[in-house]
């Protein structure tokens, strides 16, 4: 551990879900085939013009509100001008003058503690094309050119890799809960830049900021931050802090280190100016109010509710709110009358275990809350044992049949008194020596008789009734 205080700021780029791209009619969907989702606008052919996608502005405003940012009165877009082979127009349409959100703050949870994270701004922009580099050549794929992107910039207010990753996880959850983004790092939908500096614990002035750009997974964010803290601390320890340069570095996954890309002095002047092709338009209070109403209950809010109102443990609540579909499934179970604790147990153990094993989503899972209720109801009535419940669960899943099929048929628990008595009488008739030993004080043989009944019924005998009957008959 470094003895210095680390100061970390994050830039999180997240691709948005939408039918078409943010400024063109090109399709916005992940596609393995290069250059299959491209319109003339995305390739910057002479004479093309951008047309803003209203849904993207809507989603950007929603995120701005969730982050408790201030929204601008008018929507503007700016051009960020620079030359690069992945940038067909020679400029990226972004927001600089009036981002969709500024000066926000959001609570996140780090190791069960809540901390506020200050948001500098969030802005809507278009993604660039992607470049695939080979030995002697590079290929350009314009599928990504024009894909809507939200860039979120925090203040330098985080102090560890844990906090940074917790923030990113939190934001990923928010994006997914709102249905604004799939937020899938595997598809390159989230990319991060981190700024790291260190300072003495009691110092008031920030240290030299080093930027690590274009990190594509949270694990790499974690490693990059820790590497930078260590690298800078070592230099400081050695009295060589002046060697820490304000620069841009990249993270090298193989070596787990960061590598110099360019110095501050080489920083580009992006020559921002308002794009005249996108006339400014007023964001009405009515529209904002409408969007606010559409914000769903988010993970942390649900977690609090589950703990305080439904009596779940912190752990279980955390597991359930991890994905919106878990939470929704859970809430449906509770809504149709399954006891919250029971619902939570079923979800966190059996159900999640099953979908993880099968690698499917909860939406594809055959047993809906209503079907699960057939099992839990039978359990409450005592019709089936918990062991049977699990068996029925698996059997219903395997054969894709409603659980009640197995509860009412021969697979169900034997709770018929006369039938059980017949079985017990038969067993007792065949166990005279055991009965004698039992009557002579070897009372632990009681379990032997229960076991025999279970063996005979292949576990289907109602255990409560069995014990009751045995007690009477062995007196």
């Amino acid at each position: 551990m470094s003895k210095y205080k680390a100061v970390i700021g994050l830039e999180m780029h997240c691709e948005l879900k939408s039918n078409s791209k943010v400024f063109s009619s090109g399709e916005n969907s992940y596609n393995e085939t290069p250059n299959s989702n491209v319109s003339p606008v995305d390739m910057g052919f002479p004479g093309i013009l951008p047309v803003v996608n209203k849904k993207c502005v809507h989603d950007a405003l929603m995120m701005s509100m969730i982050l408790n940012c201030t929204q601008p009165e008018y929507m503007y877009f700016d051009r960020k001008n620079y030359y690069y082979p992945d940038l067909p127009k020679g400029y990226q349409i972004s927001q600089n003058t009036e981002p969709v959100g500024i000066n926000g703050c959001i609570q996140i949870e780090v190791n069960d503690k809540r901390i506020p994270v200050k948001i500098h701004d969030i802005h809507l922009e278009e993604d660039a094309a992607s470049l695939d580099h080979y030995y002697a050549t590079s290929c350009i794929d314009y599928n990504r050119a024009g894909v809507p992107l939200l860039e979120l910039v925090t203040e330098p207010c985080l102090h560890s890799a844990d906090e940074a990753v917790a923030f990113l996880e939190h934001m990923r959850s928010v994006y997914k809960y709102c249905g604004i983004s799939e937020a899938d790092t595997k598809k390159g939908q989230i990319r991060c830049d981190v700024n790291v500096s260190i300072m003495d614990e009691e110092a008031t002035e920030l240290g030299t900021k080093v930027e690590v750009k274009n990190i594509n997974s949270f694990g790499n964010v974690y490693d990059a931050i820790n590497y930078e803290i260590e690298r800078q601390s070592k230099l400081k320890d050695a009295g060589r802090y002046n060697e820490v340069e304000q620069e841009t570095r990249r993270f090298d996954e193989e070596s787990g280190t960061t590598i110099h890309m360019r110095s501050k002095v080489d920083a580009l002047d992006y020559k921002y100016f308002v794009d005249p092709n996108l006339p400014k338009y007023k964001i009405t209070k009515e529209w904002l109010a409408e969007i606010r109403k559409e914000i769903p209950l988010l993970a942390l809010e649900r977690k609090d509710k589950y703990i305080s109102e439904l009596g779940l443990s912190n752990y279980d609540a955390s597991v359930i709110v991890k994905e919106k579909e878990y939470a929704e499934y859970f809430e449906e179970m509770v809504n149709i009358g399954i006891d919250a604790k029971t619902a939570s147990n079923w979800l966190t153990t059996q159900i999640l275990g099953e979908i993880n094993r099968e690698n499917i989503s909860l939406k594809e899972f055959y047993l809906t809350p209503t079907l699960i209720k057939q099992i839990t109801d039978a359990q409450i009535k005592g019709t089936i044992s918990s062991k049977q419940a699990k068996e029925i669960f698996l059997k219903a899943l395997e054969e894709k049949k409603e659980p009640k099929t197995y509860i009412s048929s021969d697979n169900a628990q034997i709770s018929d008194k006369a039938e059980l008595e017949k079985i017990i009488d038969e067993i007792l008739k065949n166990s005279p020596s055991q009965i004698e030993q039992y009557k002579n004080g070897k009372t632990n043989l009681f379990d032997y008789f229960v076991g025999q009944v279970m063996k005979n019924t292949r576990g289907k005998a109602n255990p409560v009734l069995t014990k009751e009957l045995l007690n009477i008959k062995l007196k």
Partner: protein
Amino acid sequence: MNNMHKTIVELHEMLKNKETTSAELIKESLQKSHEVQEKCNAFVSILDDAEAKEITDNYLSGIPFGIKDNYSTKDILSTGSSNTLKNYVPFFNATAVENLLKAGAIPVNKTVLDEFGMGGTGTTGHTGPVHNPWDLTRSCAGSSSGSACAVASGVYPYALGSDTGDSIRKPAAYCGIVGYKPTYGMISRYGLFPFASSLDHCGVLTRSVMDAALVVDCMKGQDEKDMTSWDSSNIHLAASLDGKVQGKKLCYIKEICDLNNYPEANEELKKHLENFHKVIENFKSQGVEIDEVSVDKNLLDAEPSVYVILSCAEATSNMSNLTGIIFGPRGNGKNVMEMMMDHRTHGFSPLIKRRFVIGSYILQKENQERYFKNAGRVRRLLVDTWKNLFKEYDAVILPVGSGPAKHLDGDKDVLTKDTAILEEHLQIGNFGGFPSITIPDGFINGLPVGINITGNVYDDANVLNIAYALENTMNYKNQIAKEVNHE
């Protein structure tokens, strides 16, 4: 076979009455194109394979026209008169072109412009200078040089132009024809190669106000591909031309029109302004009130620099897509950055490279406030000044330029700084997106000069109607260029 000097309405009647055919008109137009090309170098491409179309009730059906080469035309070479696009064949039509094709109009050539519209002389296109059909030693002005030249030469009744500063309205004056740019956004810019997006307008060059109205009626319309376009379906330009101007109020600006502002004025300028005042006096007799108004001279003096700043800044960014990577000839180089640099270094003419340098400088972080932002503020002041005039007046009426067309070699024209505002004031029409039309208003030494009428945004019908009435007080409607003989 000699019909292409006629008006659109005349041609339409002939086609309807089967006195001629679309094929005959095309043949004549192509033949004239080749003649004009020989003499004036007005075209980048002549479309010899142009095919006749069915004659419908649309006035434009079956009639040939020309397209400035900065409009994207599907399957037809579109160069912007630049080496950077010398082999570029687009796969989509500009919306304005598409609208005309739907009307049944027939493109027969693509006309030369100053490279990407960035010039006012008609000399910077990659195919060489365009000559004025009235006097081959003179320029057509620019940037819609080829379009103005061809319409004045009687190749067809109209050609498309684009106007960022005065690129339709000045060539029109120098060629003795009509040039009209409607309110910003009335015609979609989709497919027009951009120069300065906030100033770029599509428009048309014709030989009469009626023809201009008929063409723009077909070109205009809200376009889902251009967010700055607006719904003008309730505006019918040609139908609203009734020539009734009794009680209309116009004004001209003393600081621009008074000869006393130009102590070093040459003969041409004197005659030009004299003629202007004569035309004004004459128009008053139609019951039009025309007042002289005064505008802050400092504001007017700042205008040309404001235009340079704003247009160069936007142009630098707009033309950053010209890298030779996706389209245009590939540059040479060891890496992609070198290839882009090579493409741009060899592709652009020195004039426009100079403008890029200016534009880049202006947009630099440390210069933005001083140049770009301040220019934006002065633009607003000028627009507000004009809008204030429009509260009281239907339109502002002003002379175009400081006389007739300039000499191509340039040496014979001594440009003085004090005529700058006279040369550049049409740019205010672009600052405000105002509808603005130039019509011919006389001759100086056998060469045509023009007069301009500019009104408030969305007031196109009114502006055109005033021009229509003024046109009727003079004898320059539908004139075809006649080469003048010189000493």
